């Protein structure tokens, strides 16, 4: 079964059935199940929250400043009298959208460049890997902050910048995975059959390195979310009054000695989402049979 897949390029199972298979394997362990549940909850919340948010997220009301949680304001109000519950359930939307598209960009350029490097090898490979190494040695936060402070904090800047900086680690993974398959017999036979390089990449290499790259991408998503929230926290992410967890934590932090609710609510939101994505990515890796536990977070 496994061999015929590579030779005839026909999948015995439909791709939907395969995806369902992987998801059920992921959910069969408690950590994977919890992770998936949290992730689905957050995505659903992010999509539907504008319809049931009880208040206007940007309505400033000086008479309602720093109210403690009550039946009227479930999570209390912040220093500008805005409802914390409304802002918390809306707070993941920007982060999820930006990091989702950022991860796709990271996967695309990182994966393709990695496969290319693994494929051509030699001098070009050496040079590209040197440059990737150099980028890896610059702390992401310095580079991100520089770009964002000079180009602005709009979505059009943040998505490609995050995608670029979190993609360079994927280059290494994709390259290593390509190196592993490149010497296998079915690549040699494809070359002997006279297939073009593009066809070999698409039909032979991609199906075999896809899993490793996808797992790396899932992991990058959680790191990117962490990075994006850190930027917001430092005041270099989304701009107010957009509800965003990182920004909310940073604003409420100064007053947390008497208004802890305004900082706890976004903390719970952001932490649970990141843990959810992490557990899901781990379960995803295990379901595909990839061991990430000995890797450094680079």
């Amino acid at each position, binding site marked *: 079964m496994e061999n015929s897949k590579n030779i005839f390029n026909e999948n015995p199972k439909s791709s939907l059935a395969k995806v369902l298979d992987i998801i059920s394997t992921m959910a069969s362990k408690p950590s994977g199940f919890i992770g998936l549940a949290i992730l689905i909850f957050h995505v659903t919340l992010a999509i539907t929250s504008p319809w049931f948010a009880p208040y206007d997220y940007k309505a400033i009301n000086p008479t309602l400043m720093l109210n403690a949680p009550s039946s009227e304001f479930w999570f209390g109000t912040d220093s500008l009298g805005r409802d914390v519950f409304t802002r918390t359930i809306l707070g993941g939307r920007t982060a999820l959208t930006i990091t989702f598209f950022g991860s796709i960009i990271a996967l695309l350029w990182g994966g393709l460049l990695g496969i290319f490097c693994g494929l051509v090898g030699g001098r070009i490979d050496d040079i590209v890997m040197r440059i990737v190494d150099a980028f890896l040695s610059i*702390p992401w936060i*310095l580079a991100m*902050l*520089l770009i964002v402070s000079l180009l602005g904090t709009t979505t059009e800047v943040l998505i490609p910048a995050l995608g670029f900086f979190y993609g360079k680690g994927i280059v290494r993974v994709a390259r290593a995975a390509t190196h592993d398959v490149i010497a296998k017999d079915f690549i040699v036979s494809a070359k002997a059959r006279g297939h073009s390089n593009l066809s070999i990449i698409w039909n032979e290499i991609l199906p075999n390195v896809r899993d490793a790259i996808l797992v790396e991408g899932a992991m990058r998503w959680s790191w990117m979310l*962490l990075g994006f929230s*850190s930027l917001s926290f430092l005041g270099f992410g989304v701009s107010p009054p957009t509800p965003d967890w990182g920004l909310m934590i940073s604003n409420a*932090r100064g007053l947390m000695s008497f208004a802890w609710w305004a900082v706890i609510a976004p*903390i719970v939101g952001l932490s649970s989402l990141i843990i959810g994505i992490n557990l899901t990515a781990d379960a995803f890796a295990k379901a595909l049979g990839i061991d990430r536990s000995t890797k*450094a*977070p680079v």
Partner: protein
Amino acid sequence: MFFLIFKRFVLGLITLFIVSLITFIGVEILPGDACTSYLEREAFGEALAACIKRLGLDIPAHERYLTWAYNVIQGDFGYSLSGQMQINEVLGPRIKNSLVLASAAIIIGIPLALILGIITALWRDKMPDIIISTVAIFSMTIPEFISATLLILIVAIWLEWLPGIVIVPTDVTFFELLPNIILPVIAIAMIMTAHMARMVRSSVIQVMASDYIQMAILKGVPYWKMVFKHVLPNALLPAINVVALTIAWLLGGVVVTEVVFNYPGLGRLVIESISNRDLPVVQALGIILASIYVSINFIADLLTLMLNPRLKTLQTRK
């Protein structure tokens, strides 16, 4: 073996050279040069001309890069824009403060990570492992600024045990600094320990499953003697490189932690210089942080080579 070390060293230097090019070109191609972005609305007339003259922005970029690189090699980063002082004077106390923070975190973190990693591996899937691993996952995944904020909220505000925010001048002496660094060190060590313990755990588990350990068990080697004599030396070697990468990776996280605690180290300087658009300082920081990353990796390579006899013979055979 010396050739291998030499090769790693040269590779590190090449990486640093590329980093210097990247930071220089990056600052060059991003819109706005050092003067216009620093002076902002006052960027015209005499002030602009004087600033351009001082930074030498009127000479071509490649010549400027060469003079800059030449001075950096001699340990001179030039002048900062905002403080009107030498970057070296700005950097000196900051590096010292960050070094204190990082070494304290490493001194606490590495032994703790070893102990926790070994415990979780030996009692795999039992109660100690489940508890420690769950805590580790939490402290590993939660962003630095959240764990730092929670630490301040719980330890400093609710329990009132320690000062929450560091209020000391940049050039504070070591002993004045000490009580202030407890919370930041805990915040950084927590994340670092979790990462390293996880790697030690999987490394130990891998070695425990190997043939020679099975052999040792069958031969009837006492359990703890086997653990200390056969498992650990083999399990900890591959962990060195990964530990180095983790420490280097934390450089980014230290920036955020320092900001949360208002700690006067390199990390806060990153934010300050970027907020002030002080591009010469940003360039200097890029080079310095990258050098730290490269040297940590180089030291790790060196350690692995020295501690692993197999790699030595591998080299001579080649």
